[in-house]
């Protein structure tokens, strides 16, 4: 077996291990108590062992792919997002050994699973480095930045648990609406994975020609039935579906089609879940958080920002500036990705100041941690896909 396929296998093993560990943590949460019981110990130990085994396989994926490609596997959207998912697990393991809270694993691992699944929907082949990326700073900058973001993500997980536990879901409130909205968005990511997978299993493909915004003709291949057509698009593939709505040249109708399919299928899944469970998803999950200590979750939320913030600053701003100076001749150029890293930095700076001097703790702090995670995910995914810029090589 060559390195590249060994690497894919290891990633798959890690993926499955995280899934299993999630259920084991579920067992640990159910049997846990304020007083440590033997059964909790058993479940908990098993869960963290499986997590660590998965993490080792994940690192194995990273190293073997590094060897196969000849460069650190952080050079395109698939590789970077996968590395981020791996580091979320790493950050979780770190925090777990400080605070020993199984509930954190129950929620952090599915997030990591979702991130890796999401990553795998992008082209996964090994790409060579374009000249701009040929630098050891690629390795240093991206890995440090991803590590920082992963640790900050744990803060959001802790915040999420805190909110699930402390929001009264029996009464109508803004908080209840928004926590359910978070659940819905998570289901939409599942929708994206499901729709991409099903169309690719069905081997769907249709090619169209279109006129781009600089008025030249291009071809584009859709891998999902075209809901939206590119500007003046004409089907090339025989019998391809006529797009329902044609978009102006500014809009990438292919990406829009993917987004709308994900929302459609995600919403169907969400509605089915609601019909089957006859409860809000937040209500379904709430019992799992009942036994976790609010004070501890609040502290984990704060502590992981404290640990992650310096790492993030170092990787996403300082190393980024040093590299940008070497590659693009200036340390700062207001490229969207740079700006969003700065926004993330400023946002967490506000978070820290709010805690320190306004005494924002508990729910407020938890909500801010959740928003911080949204900003990170926006920078990770949307900036590359939506906003044009120097980083949109993926």
């Amino acid at each position: 077996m060559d390195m590249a396929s060994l690497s894919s296998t290891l990633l798959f093993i890690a993926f499955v291990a995280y899934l299993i560990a999630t259920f084991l943590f579920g067992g640990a949460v159910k049997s846990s108590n304020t007083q440590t019981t033997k059964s909790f110990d058993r479940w908990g130990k098993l869960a963290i062992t499986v997590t660590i085994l998965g993490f080792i396989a994940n690192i194995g994926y990273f190293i073997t792919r590094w060897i196969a490609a000849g460069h650190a596997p952080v050079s395109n959207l698939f590789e970077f997002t996968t590395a981020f998912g791996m580091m979320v697990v790493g950050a979780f393991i770190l925090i777990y050994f400080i605070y020993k809270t199984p509930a954190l694993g129950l929620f952090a691992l599915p997030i990591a699973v979702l991130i890796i699944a999401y990553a795998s929907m992008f082209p996964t082949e090994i790409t060579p480095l374009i000249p701009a990326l040929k630098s050891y700073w690629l390795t240093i900058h991206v890995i440090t930045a991803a590590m920082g973001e992963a640790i900050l993500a744990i803060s959001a997980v802790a915040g999420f648990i805190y909110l699930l536990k402390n929001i009264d879901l029996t009464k109508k409130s803004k908080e209840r609406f928004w926590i359910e909205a978070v659940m819905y968005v998570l289901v939409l990511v599942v929708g994206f994975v499901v729709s991409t997978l099903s169309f690719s299993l069905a081997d769907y493909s249709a090619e169209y020609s279109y006129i781009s915004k600089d008025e030249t003709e291009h071809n584009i291949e859709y891998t999902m039935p075209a809901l939206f057509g590119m500007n003046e698009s004409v089907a090339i593939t025989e019998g391809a579906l006529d797009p329902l709505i044609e978009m102006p040249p500014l809009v990438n109708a292919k990406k829009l089609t993917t987004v709308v399919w994900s929302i459609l299928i995600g919403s169907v899944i969400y509605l089915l879940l609601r019909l089957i469970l006859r409860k809000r998803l937040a209500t379904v999950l709430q019992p799992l958080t009942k036994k976790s200590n609010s004070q501890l979750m609040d502290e984990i939320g704060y502590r992981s920002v404290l640990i992650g913030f310096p790492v993030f600053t170092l990787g996403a701003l300082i190393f980024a500036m040093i590299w940008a100076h070497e590659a693009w001749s200036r340390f700062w150029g207001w490229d969207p990705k740079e700006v969003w890293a700065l926004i993330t930095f400023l946002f967490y700076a506000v978070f820290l100041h709010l805690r320190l001097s306004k005494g924002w703790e508990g729910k407020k702090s938890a909500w801010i941690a959740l928003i911080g995670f949204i900003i990170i995910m926006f920078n990770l995914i949307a900036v590359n896909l939506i906003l044009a810029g120097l980083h949109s090589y993926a």
Partner: protein
Amino acid sequence: MDKIVCTCGNVNPAGTELCESCGRPLNDETKEKKIVDMRYEGSARRSQTYNKTIIDKVWNFFSSVKVGMWIIVAILVAAAIGTILPQVFYVPATNETDIAAYYERIYGTFGTLYYQLGLSDLYSSWWFQGLVGMLGISLVIASLDRVIPLYKSLKKQKTKRHISFLKRQRVYGIGKADVSEESLLKAEEKLKELKYNVKREGNAILAERGRFSRWGPYVNHLGLIIFLFGVMLRALPGFYVDETMWLREGETLYVPETHGYFLESKEFIYETYSKEESKEVYGEAIDRVGTIAKNYQTDVALYKGPEGAVAGHTEDLTFEKEASIQVNKPIKFDNFSVFQMDFRLDELATMTFQLQDKQTQQSFGEFTIDLADPQPIYELNDGYKVEVMDYYADFTGFEEGVPQSQSPLPNNPAFLIKMYSPEFPKGETSFVMIKETVEPLGENQHKIAFQSVETRDVSGLTVRKDLTLPLLALGGLIFMIGVAQGAYWNHRRIWIQLLEDGQTVIAAHTNKNWLSVKRDLDKVTDVAHLPKYLDQQDIDSLEEKVDKVEGV
């Protein structure tokens, strides 16, 4: 404004919430709190105390953390708005009209609005820079206002604190435990073992650890201030150079702003990954996206003009060094760096023609015109020669019979040529363009037949000097040290006191990481048999305890 004299006799500055010495709450508001606010040790921030002149008001405005946060939020929102559409410097247009047209053509009405509101050049707008400036002022003043009182009150704090202070700590316990002098000694010993700095005053112990982490925020603010100062410096002339130059293969040009350096381009190299030579792992990716660039490189020679030479001087250049400028590998000299940024492939360099008989196509000789330096006469064999009367590098057509060239770049070369032959010693005139010839003075017998071209590549280079970099690096370093200091260490304090009524009090405070301070306290309690403590903020545990009591 009067000073506040505490019951214990300490004189505190006006505005103090907790006595600097014994910790007694000094005003009603503080007295009502269940857990005391330990942020600045309850010291008086000077900004809050005097508010008379306009200067004081401005000072207090910038001293406020709340204001500082709003400034950060404003910068954050503005920065985000600036990413909605590309900024002007990423737009392929240089003058105002073209830029405006670009935004309208690509982004429609929204684009026009975005451009007209100035959002397309948001980061260099006066108001955005002003916001960053205000953040700078806020950093300076807010830090100055806090660090001094904090330093004073941490230095002044007494080992023995008043019970009203201790019972308002988040971690607090009291009890008639069997505590003797001996157990205090044991506690003292254990705390020392846990790397605490222990002070003893009668029946009171104050154990303190990691106080230096309290300075973290001020250190990182100092780093930010230095960084912003560095950014400010580049507005001064001489600190910052940002120029671009287009350099053709074979050409030697003056490097802008360098006072006497010249660069010669030996060769520009553009490489792509090929499926054969690169590792087979890339095959799949190359199949999917087509060509993938591998290298952009300009091989250059650097020369320096003689010392004190003036502009225009082209002789006596001394060779300095050769280098290959690649992306990520600039050439560096004398505080300058030159970067590979852009390129244009295949600009026409030379054109080769034959002088031919129009009918028989018999050749009377071949000549090559260097487009950068066309010669007036090209001598051919047997009395044939060609005279280049004029050259139009970027020919666009005739205006009133006169050929026009719109630029000096050889985008569409055309020549006005006289062909001399034994038959026509006075010459035949021909206007030679790419793919076409005009005979302005009547039918010719000879013609200029195009043979071949040679092209050369043009490198787009950026010349940069930035003398503020060391200062920026220093600012960044200090910031990182400060952030690490504040985030990875924490200030823990444990108070243990034997009260006169025989009860023992323990209290603990930390600025972060309560888990660790509680663990420390557990260890001390184990050896010294101190009373149980409560986390007065841990509602879950408190509730559970209540539940249990009720359940019994």
